[in-house]
């Protein structure tokens, strides 16, 4: 229906991923005492970013193949006219 749902999913997770990664890279070590000393913001931020980017790649690939179909169909119409 109109919009590819992978677009908002991809965009949202990319944004959340970037936010967490950047925050994780610049945050103080002490705040990770609760998470067993692991910088979960950085680690999980990168995972979310990767997921978001993969979703966006799907959208890109789908759009590309759709355009390919359209041009093919258009050229076939042109050929049948000749």
């Amino acid at each position, binding site marked *: *229906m*109109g*919009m590819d*749902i992978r677009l*908002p*999913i991809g*965009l*949202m*997770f990319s*944004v*959340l991923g970037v*936010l*967490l990664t950047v*925050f*994780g890279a610049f*945050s103080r070590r002490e*705040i*990770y005492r*609760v*998470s*067993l000393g*692991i910088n*979960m*913001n950085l680690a*999980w931020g990168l995972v*979310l970013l990767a*997921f978001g980017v993969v979703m966006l790649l799907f959208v890109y690939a789908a759009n590309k193949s759709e355009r390919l179909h359209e041009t093919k169909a258009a050229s076939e119409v042109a050929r049948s006219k000749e």
Partner: protein
Amino acid sequence: MSLTSIDWLIMGVYFVFVLGIGVALKRYMKTSTDFFLAGRSIPAWICGLAFLSANLGAQEVIGMAACGAKYGIATSHFYWIGAVPAMVFVGIFMMPFYYGSKARSVPEYLRMRFDEKTRGLNAISFAVMTIFSSGISMYAMAKLIQVLHVFDVPFQKMELPQGMIFHVSIVLSALIVLGYIFLGGLTSAIYNEVLQFFLIVAGFLPLVYLGLKNVGGWPGLKASLPPAYSHSWQGMTHANTNPLGVEVFGLAMGLGFVLSFGYWCTNYLVVQRAMAADSMSAARRTPLIAAVPKILFPILVILPGLIAVALPTQAPTSLQAANGTVIVQQATGRGIIPAKIDEASGQVKLDSTGKPVLDYDLAIPNMLLHYYPTGLLGLGLTALLASFMSGMAGNVTAFNTVWTYDIYQSYINKHASDEHYLWMGRMATVFGVALSIAAAYAATRFNNIMDFLQLVFAFVNAPLFATFLLGMFWKRTTGHGAFTGLLSGMLAAALHHGVTLPAGADTGIKGGWLGIAHTYPSEMAQNFWTAIWAWSVCFVVTILISVVTKPHKEEEMVGLVYSLTKKPSEKHLPWYQRPAYLGIAVLALALSLNIIFR
């Protein structure tokens, strides 16, 4: 709970996307079918995730973690015995009639198959039920926001009274849900449910990782819990030797058959998601696709509950509110689960044996606070809020459709234009949300009213699956039979509840209000048996009345009854898209997990 700007930022990003989806979809809402059934144009995987997510409300996330903490891994029966077989059944056997009949709702199917009175009974009870379910979600969410002190600091900064937090939480959540459904209808709800699904996974998965790492993995977790907690089938042969207080027959019939099939196969809240699919085979695959993550969900919701009780019990501490006053005396709890505090006296609540009553619903929230640093905490909290909203939105979309098609169009205004019904759908969304708010406030006033209503709905729902089973698979079933069967099933449920009581409970809302003929070891056992009685009575009465009443004409039932309908051909599909193969694979996976964690 102290949130920093990064947490607020994450929450803000999520809400921008939630409303953004509604805005982006608005221009596609041209007909009532677009609004109520998403134009029947959604691919199977999206419907599948929405099918799952509509059920992934707060009761699911908070409730199943609470159950995990209370009963251990036996909670997985709700998934591997309960939900999964029912989801396979609805996909393979029932969807051909739901989708194939072109009924726009579950009550409408009942009218096509039986008659107007059966539809009316189902439509009205269902509409009332959705409003109260959505109200309960709203109430629980506002309560949780209060308990976790999410908004305390911002309210202080804006110099607003803390007493306003509850009201603001209710209004805010109502406005957001209203906003995106009003704009984009079912499509918007489905898209948001898929977004919420991924967010809930993203928000809770690190919790499982950190928790397991902390307690020494699965072996470490097993070692620190009583054995019944990590074996789902231990002691199941007798009701008194397992934590659920249910024996195998009650479990298989009550939960595995009546309750789960009743929910997943007849509840329009979930069936609506499959009806939005773009083809018959996509509609049939919807519940099967949903079953795969459903099988794995115990990892996400039950494990955190188990970890919460496995952690060392903390010495009594006091939490400090942002303004410096001590608010919760964390008394003798279990793991990181605190005891319940009586709001009136400020004392720990004790049960009849003098032990403190534990607040298991805090399992997930306390785990978030225990393990998440700021940043991730924002994500986890957003995931929690998302689960509340998907529960609400699912109910509101089911309500506006049933109201518009099955009540308004059938009894109030029969021959209006499609444009008018689209408008009515939007209006129904507005007053559906308004009524939910009223229900949420009713819950604050009379705590028992909600327990009471949930009980009534259990009575209404339990027999329903017998009606569908007979309607779809026995062509002799008549409208009078279905209607009488449903009513007697409800009555049987009420009667059974009236003469039984769970051990240790007081008569009244828990049962026994007609005298006590039998005592069950647990409330769960009583619920399962109430359902079994209701189902059986409905089944038998429907058959008896059907046999003595005039049968429907066969040509009127083509596409509605199994023996009169051509089987949908799936030959053109590759094997991995054929519902039967998918169903077998899903069942095999559920069975193997049952064996591994027996």
